[in-house]
């Protein structure tokens, strides 16, 4: 229960309720104030009217009663009093003699009039009335008193009966009370022959005021209800677009950018709705752009992944190609070894009994020589493979003199060159600057190019190997006197496995591996070939201490250094 109340108190109060509440409080205050002011002024008017009537009645009675009092006609006086008592609110009326004693009196109690609650039994005020004082007094306060008789408010009015000039002119009776007051003040010199006294109950006035209050209150209530109804309707109508806006903003927050607010109003709310619609449209377009951007990013990511997968696939294909190349390389000499050994076995089994004649010996010898040659070939292939594996795994760069590496490479290939009857001419620059590289990788590069050249020149060809330095680079040229490479395939010779048809010649690893190794060492490789005039491969590497790391230069003037100086600077 308590929780229910507290949750009600904490419950969210909408702007509509707030507006209605504020306007209601304002209206209630306004109506209450109006009712209060109206009640007050009406009560005052009623009271003033009552006072006026009381006074006028008393003075009229005093005026009319002059002759009857003078002649002592009590019957006439009683008639006057009965006339006065015809007024509902008059509860008693008296005529006093000059001594202030009651001459004639009438009251409601003696008349047994019903409808007068709590009327006094002895309505006539006791005590002497000072008529002279009444005559001399110019103020109204002295001619009436509010008295409490048995708890009831009764206004007591008194007026002197004066024998004056005006009494002879009865037409003066018709004059209004204010004029009479003026005359009364002027007739102070006249003789007071008695007094008139009237008691007026406030009961009817209070009832009238009460009735008036109730009618006012009901009118006020009706007004409030009407005003509140109008307010609620007006506020609702005014805030209805705001509700629509709240719903629409909720939708937009939820991701629905198609929601529009339709407000056909030429005011601030209309402006707000228009702004909201524009903002939503902007948001939608912004979001669309964002979504497109994200899509694009996702696409780029996907592309990158695909590229990586392709690269990986390429690597796997390279491994497969390498394995295939190795298998081809090894399986051919192996087939030779296996076949010739089986031939030897067959023949020897066949000759077990007869024995091998000296004439047959050369044939056997050629079989076995073939086996030996093919075994050597296998050994060479395995060695090359191991060297390649070592070259591939080597990471750390060191200062290398290309002349030294080239000499090693050529001596390593001596046997093959000799078999092919290929001559190698070397033109090495003395004091060649060192480069940053790997012995193994460089050897692999030079081996591949020289074997390529060896295959190109065929029997009795020449390969020329030249080294020189120029423009901070070490340049190695390997030139052959072969047939040359047709221009249409010159651009493809570094592509991986372009030469797969000729796999089985050389290491089978291709010029693409050479290209990759040169790139690893920050070098360049180029081919120049003319059909019929041979081919030249040109490999160049930056001189150690130049290029990438200027900080390594001793004085920043490498351009003026001699190659041998540069070599020394590399240690």
């Amino acid at each position: 229960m308590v929780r229910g109340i507290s949750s009600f108190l904490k419950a969210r109060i909408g702007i509509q309720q707030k507006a209605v509440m504020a306007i209601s409080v304002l209206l209630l205050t306004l109506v209450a104030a109006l009712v209060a002011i109206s009640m007050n002024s009406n009560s005052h008017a009623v009271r003033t009217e009552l006072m006026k009537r009381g006074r006028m009645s008393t003075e009229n009675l005093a005026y009319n009663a002059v002759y009857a009092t003078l002649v002592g006609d009590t019957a006439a006086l009683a008639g006057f009093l009965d006339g006065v008592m015809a007024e509902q609110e008059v509860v008693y009326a008296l005529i006093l003699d000059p001594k202030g004693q009651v001459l004639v009196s009438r009251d409601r109690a003696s008349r047994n009039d019903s409808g007068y609650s709590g009327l006094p039994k002895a309505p006539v005020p006791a005590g002497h009335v000072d008529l002279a004082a009444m005559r001399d007094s110019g103020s109204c306060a002295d001619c009436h008193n509010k008295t409490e008789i048995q708890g009831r408010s009764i206004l007591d009015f008194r007026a002197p009966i004066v024998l004056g000039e005006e009494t002879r002119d009865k037409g003066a009776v018709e004059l209004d009370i204010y004029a009479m007051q003026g005359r009364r003040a002027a007739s102070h010199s006249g003789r007071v022959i008695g007094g008139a006294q009237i008691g007026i109950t406030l009961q009817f006035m209070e009832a009238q005021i009460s009735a008036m209050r109730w009618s006012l209150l009901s009118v006020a209530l009706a007004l409030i209800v009407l005003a509140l109804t109008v307010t609620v309707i007006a506020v609702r109508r005014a805030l209805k677009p705001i509700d629509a806006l709240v719903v629409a903003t909720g939708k937009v927050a939820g991701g629905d950018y198609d929601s529009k607010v339709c407000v056909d109003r030429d005011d601030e709310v209309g402006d707000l709705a228009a702004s909201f619609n524009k903002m939503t449209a902007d948001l939608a377009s912004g979001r669309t752009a964002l979504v497109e951007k994200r899509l694009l990013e996702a696409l780029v990511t996907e592309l990158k992944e695909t590229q990586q997968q392709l690269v990986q696939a390429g690597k796997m294909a390279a491994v497969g190609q390498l394995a295939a190349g190795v298998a081809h390389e090894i399986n051919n000499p192996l087939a030779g070894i296996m076949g010739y050994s089986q031939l030897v076995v067959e023949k020897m089994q066949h000759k077990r009994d007869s024995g091998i004649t000296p004439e047959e010996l050369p044939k056997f010898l050629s079989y076995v020589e073939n086996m030996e040659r093919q075994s050597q070939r296998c050994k060479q292939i395995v060695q090359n493979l191991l060297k390649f594996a070592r070259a591939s795994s080597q990471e750390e760069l060191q200062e290398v003199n290309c002349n030294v590496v080239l000499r090693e490479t050529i001596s390593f290939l001596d046997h093959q060159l000799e078999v092919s009857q290929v001559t190698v001419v070397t033109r090495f620059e003395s004091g060649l600057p060192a480069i940053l590289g790997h012995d193994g990788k460089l050897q692999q590069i030079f081996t591949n190019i020289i074997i390529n050249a060896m295959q190109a020149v065929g029997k009795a060809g020449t390969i020329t190997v030249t080294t020189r330095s120029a423009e901070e680079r070490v340049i190695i040229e390997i030139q052959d006197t072969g047939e040359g490479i047709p221009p249409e395939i010159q651009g493809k010779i570094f592509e991986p496995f372009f030469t797969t048809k000729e796999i089985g010649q050389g290491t089978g690893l291709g010029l693409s591996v050479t290209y990759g190794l040169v790139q690893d060492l920050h070098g360049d490789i180029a081919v120049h070939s003319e059909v019929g005039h041979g081919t030249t491969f040109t490999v160049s590497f930056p001189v150690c201490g130049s290029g990438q790391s200027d900080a390594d230069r001793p004085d920043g003037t490498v351009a003026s250094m001699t190659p041998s100086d540069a070599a020394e600077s590399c240690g």
Partner: protein
Amino acid sequence: MPGYGHILIVDDEVVIRSLLSEMLSEDGFSVATAEDGKRGLDYVNNGQVDLVISDVHMPVMDGPELVARLHQIDPNLPVIILNSIPEGDPSKGMAGRAITCLGKPFDLQKLRDAIVQVGVVKSPAGPSGG
């Protein structure tokens, strides 16, 4: 050697050509050799051949192309393929043709069995003593 099976050996490897020539001659076949598919095809176009033994990877014209060309000339000409790469089937796409595959290195006896299987007639003398 008229009347006996005439076998063409196509391989860019000298050692394979010499080994097979030696062996098949001893077995009583007449043998011819070619260094690549193109020369082998020229030979077949110019004379009667009972069987072709071919390598797969060769310069100028490789084994599969040679087989396809031979099929155009004579769909019934038997071919024995010698493959030096263990993975992959060089006879792929040559279904229905008289093709036998042997991987390098191979047993001489298996090659002999394959030759018998394709029905090439050899010299009645059999393997000669030299």
